[in-house]
């Protein structure tokens, strides 16, 4: 997972609340055997509507999604995070996230920035007045910069540290590889291996 300090990219205003994971990535896309390529299923039902924001070419390179409250509710599918990241999103801004979605995001390196709903409204207006405008998300200073707007955001210290260091769960464990190797050197010889007996 790549380290995250600041990110500047096109902001995408998604004026919807309770965006559940079935909307982010419908179940029919879950039969796949890869972790990539889910961008075609991202918001699949909504994208059938021509006026849906992601169908607007100015947002084709969107990487900061600005959504309404309670983003990521519903099923625990990790595919929801994969789909957003496969599309190119690095940050989702909302005033409230579902717990499991937020946990899954932190593990994959997608920043979920909790911004007050008042500030979300201001950012929406800014993006709608200047479509395709870029937003800067500063994880070091915990602020979102959109035009003249400077909005603070919340993120728990542990997730922030992991994102700044670029450490996923596996990366974290591998920092203790010496302990794993030491444990292995003391395993009893009678423990089985799967290679031919």
């Amino acid at each position, binding site marked *: *997972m790549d380290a995250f300090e600041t990110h500047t990219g096109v902001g995408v205003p998604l004026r919807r609340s309770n965006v559940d994971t079935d909307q982010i990535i419908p179940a029919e896309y879950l*039969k*796949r*055997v*890869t*972790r*990539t390529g889910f961008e075609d299923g991202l918001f699949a039902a909504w994208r059938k509507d021509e006026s849906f924001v992601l169908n607007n070419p100015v947002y084709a390179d969107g990487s900061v999604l600005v959504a309404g409250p309670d983003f990521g509710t519903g099923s625990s599918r*990790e595919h929801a995070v994969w789909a957003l990241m496969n599309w190119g999103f690095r940050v989702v801004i909302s005033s409230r996230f579902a717990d499991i979605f937020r946990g*899954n995001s932190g*593990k994959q390196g997608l920043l979920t920035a909790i911004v007050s709903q008042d500030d979300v409204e201001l950012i929406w207006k800014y993006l709608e007045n200047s479509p395709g405008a870029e937003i800067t998300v500063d994880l070091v200073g915990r602020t979102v910069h959109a035009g003249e707007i400077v909005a603070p955001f919340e993120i728990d210290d542990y997730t922030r540290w992991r994102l700044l260091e670029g450490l*996923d*769960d*596996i990366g*974290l*464990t*591998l920092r*203790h*590889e010496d*302990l*794993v190797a030491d*444990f*292995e050197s003391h*395993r*009893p*010889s*009678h*423990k*089985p*291996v*799967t*290679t031919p*007996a």
Partner: protein
Amino acid sequence: MAGTLAEKVWDAHVVRRAEGEPDLLYIDLHLLHEVTSPQAFDGLRLAGRPVRRPDLTLATEDHNVPTTPGPITDPVSKIQVETLRRNCEEFGVRLYPMGDADQGIVHVVGPQLGLTQPGMTVVCGDSHTSTHGAFGALAFGIGTSEVEHVLATQTLPLKPFRTLAVNVRGALPEGVTAKDIVLAVIAKIGTGGGQGYVIEYRGDAIEALSMEARMTVCNMSIEAGARAGMIAPDQTTFDYLRGRPHAPTGADWDAAVAEWTALRTDDDAVFDAEVDLDASALTPFVTWGTNPGQGLPLSASVPDPEEFADESDRLAAANALAYMGLEPGTPLRDIKVDTVFVGSCTNGRIEDLRAAATVVQGHRVADGVRMLVVPGSAKVRLQAESEGLDKVFTEAGAEWRLPGCSMCLGMNPDTLAPGERSASTSNRNFEGRQGKGGRTHLVSPLVAAATAVRGTLSSPADLETAGRPQGELASATTGEA
């Protein structure tokens, strides 16, 4: 400090412990199948990471495989199986593919090879990994991200669990089996009763069970919501393991047995909760609803939802009866089935097939009923054939199939049609589990076999009253006792 069996196994695997963080636990055995592993391998590939211990990892094809000869026809199933083959080759993981002598359901294969041993930590991207707890291993299902984590590091960061003792005391009556014990436990504590717990099954009724019967009990721990189920290893365990392909030998065997013998809950250890069950009062058990906790003795009748004190239980029962197409007050013995399924990681082992065969021997499967017998592994199939069990089944009119998960979850072509009703030795009676609109009654292999003969939910005793000699029946129960 005094500890429970589960706590002892946990403590022996802690690689790293730090204040405010989950323990990092070492994993002794990681089992893989084609459904939950592809994205984990893809994650490794994206990050450029190898599998840390291919020699502690084993894969088998089970969920999607057809149980009739020939290739996989469903394109999605085919892709999953082909992807597993490619991944195992690329990352150097041993795989038992369809047609291999050691292929089978992942939870049948591990114990059969002697890979599952007391005191180990065993994981698999599959909730029925709890099966392996029958050996006194700490074994539990994990998600795909965790599969990737174990592949890359051979460890898992885990939060502590609570311990629940399920004490089963007394002698099981004839014709009552491990399946009836576990269905009765789930009916008693509910599908959420084990949430957050590792269950340890204890008591003389558990100690009297064979290894295969213990696996049946531990297998369904997840249906009570528990993380894992365990049984302390004893002479039965050691006798089962001795001589198996991956069991220790020589001095290693002696060292292992000495270590395994110490794997017992200390007398003064305290469980977070305890539940008692009287085995001598049990009778054959069947489910009537759409979760494994909705079960009753076979002699009972379909319950009236109005009789449930709790509002949500009442609603759940009403919904279940509507889905199952059942009327309150109908004797369970009057329920007619279309299909009987004997198999799965719950009841697809040789003792299960022997039990079912003893009941159907000399009988015919009832008109209008199809009976599928699906061995849990290729080895089980061969063993059964060497004992002539396949002939017993086919002569009775049952179908003798190739090994796999099959109708337990209908990922292969073995499914129920909408509205069809089964008596099934599997583990889940969820809506649509065995096929869209299919209706499932969970039963033991003995009840499944008797049901196939009579066409309605039945126990072997019901065949006896129909004029069957007593002697044959007595032997029907020895396999699982």
